[in-house]
């Protein structure tokens, strides 16, 4: 990241941190949802962008985090953020065996296998006494959205930092190597399974932590909305449109899409899904690599031209 990018990032973060108390509830909620999706997109980008395992089921961990938090708050009377931390832990703990199992699948099989996993967990939540079955769990009302927002912002920043780290660490290099060719990576000494399970765990912890905040924000958890595929697909769409496997892709895609979809949903509720879907299709035809790579290619060209002019 260049010096200028760093300065811009710091300013953006400062604004994101300082402004919400002065916003009305709606603007705050909108900001929360945006940051939430950007954070989810960053999480998804690790396993799907860097490791190359397209997942349609990271919401499994989001729901898990939401339920863990609800149970921790209701049964153990823990503060919500402790519950959310626990949610992250539980997600990580589940992600290890699940990763060993599921990461043996590839391509569409892994993607849809994970989708099935989310469905299966939804069924579990639906039929288990502890999770309140189909009735769901009520959290104490009267929660304040601001702490949840900051919680989410911090996790979003962690997501960004993790991506930055992955971009310039040995771990990240190994991850990208196995994305390109697992067998070759293994004969070059990369512990393929361990590395990708780690990536999977990172991609699970974050939704786990975020789900906890979400539960507290909504004050109610039930199976259908906690494991909603549309949460996942939204994060997927954001990342791919922004640029899969890039540092800025989830941010650009996330901000753009959540604003566009909010505007569309408010202005054209009937046509919302059609426009949203159509947009994805058209953008893919125009920018198959996503927005971030398109921007950096354009910057590259400008720099090259500038260099030429100088010479």
């Amino acid at each position, binding site marked *: 990241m260049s010096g200028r990018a760093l300065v811009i990032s710091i300013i953006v973060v400062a604004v994101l941190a300082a402004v919400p108390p002065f916003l009305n509830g709606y603007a705050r909620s909108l900001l929360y949802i945006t940051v939430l999706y950007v954070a989810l997109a960053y999480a998804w980008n690790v396993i799907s962008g860097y490791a190359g395992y397209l997942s349609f089921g990271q919401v499994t961990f989001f729901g898990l985090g939401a339920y863990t938090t609800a149970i921790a708050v209701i049964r153990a009377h823990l503060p919500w953020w402790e519950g959310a931390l626990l949610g992250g832990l539980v997600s990580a703990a589940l992600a290890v065996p699940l990763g060993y199992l599921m990461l043996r699948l590839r391509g569409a099989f892994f993607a849809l296998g994970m989708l099935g996993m989310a469905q299966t967990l939804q069924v579990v939540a639906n039929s288990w006494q502890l999770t309140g079955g189909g009735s769901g769990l009520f959290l104490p009302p009267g929660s304040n959205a601001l702490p949840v927002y900051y919680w989410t912002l911090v996790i979003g920043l962690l997501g960004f930092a993790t991506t930055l780290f992955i971009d310039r660490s040995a771990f990240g290099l190994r991850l990208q190597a196995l994305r390109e060719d697992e067998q070759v990576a293994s004969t070059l000494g990369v512990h393929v399974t361990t590395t990708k399970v780690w990536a999977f765990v990172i991609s699970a912890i974050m939704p786990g932590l975020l789900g906890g905040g979400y539960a507290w924000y909504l004050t109610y958890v039930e199976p259908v909305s906690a494991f909603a595929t549309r949460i996942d697909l939204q994060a997927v769409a954001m990342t791919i449109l922004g640029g*899969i496997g890039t540092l800025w892709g989830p941010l650009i895609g996330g901000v753009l899409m959540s604003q566009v979809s909010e505007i569309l949903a408010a202005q054209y509720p009937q046509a919302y899904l059609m426009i949203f*879907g159509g947009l994805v299709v058209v953008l893919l035809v125009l920018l198959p690599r996503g927005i971030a790579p398109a921007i950096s290619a354009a910057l590259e060209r400008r720099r090259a031209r500038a260099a030429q002019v100088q010479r």
Partner: protein
Amino acid sequence: MHAALFGQLTIDGLLVGGVYALSALGLNVIFGVMRIVNLAHGEFVIGAALLAAVLFERLHASVLVVLPLAFVLAFGLGALIQRAFLRRLPTDLASAEATSLLMTFGLSYFFVGAWLAFFSGNFRSVPYLTGAWTLGPFSIAQARLLAFVASGIVAALLAMLLRYTALGRAIRATSQNLQGALACGVDVERVRTLSFALGTAIAAASGCLLILIFTVNPETGANVTLASFAVIALGGLGNYAGTLVGAAVIGLAISFTGYFATAQVAQAAPYVLFILVLLLRPAGLLGKSGA
């Protein structure tokens, strides 16, 4: 367990499996030739189902009349989509699989929206042949049997098309060996368009039969896509005979777990089964197991 009950559950399972088989066949034709998992598949199924329901409500049109109509419409729609969008995706990109998945995901959102605008969010079904025939100790649901038989006929027609016509051979050739097909001068672009159109049309046909059994609204398409995918994952991607076996297995799993466990377990059964089978036999039940 009584033999009669066992038989009844088997019949129920196989009949449901029949409808899934047809939808999955459509998905599999598309995958076989284009190597694309079409996430919008369920939307085509549901679109046709809702069309059949609306035409029944308004005009009392029998689904058997609507079926060919929906087939033709969907065929055109599929050809259009392939020509206008899917064909434009770059194939040399390392992330080509991701892009094609995302594009069909975008299409699926688009069509959910379109069907909502078109048909509203109402749940619909068609009260046609709602009764059952009794055969000894068994009762055989008329609509299910019809759907099963019609699925069988469409599947047989498809098999005949694939086996005995030049187009069918071209489709199979392309899905078995793209390079070989190109070398033989097969018009692969045309085969792709026709396969996508055919897959879509079969989806529509299965939708017209599905509506005899299930109650659906525009947002239930994802379930159909998932179930169909589970079927072909079990039977083997690109393996048409395997699709029928996969569908039977899924149908039986739903029926038996629904009875002996709970409806919740039955709902998860296809996925659990599909994950288990993939872990044990990555190429599917009938696929050749890899090295």
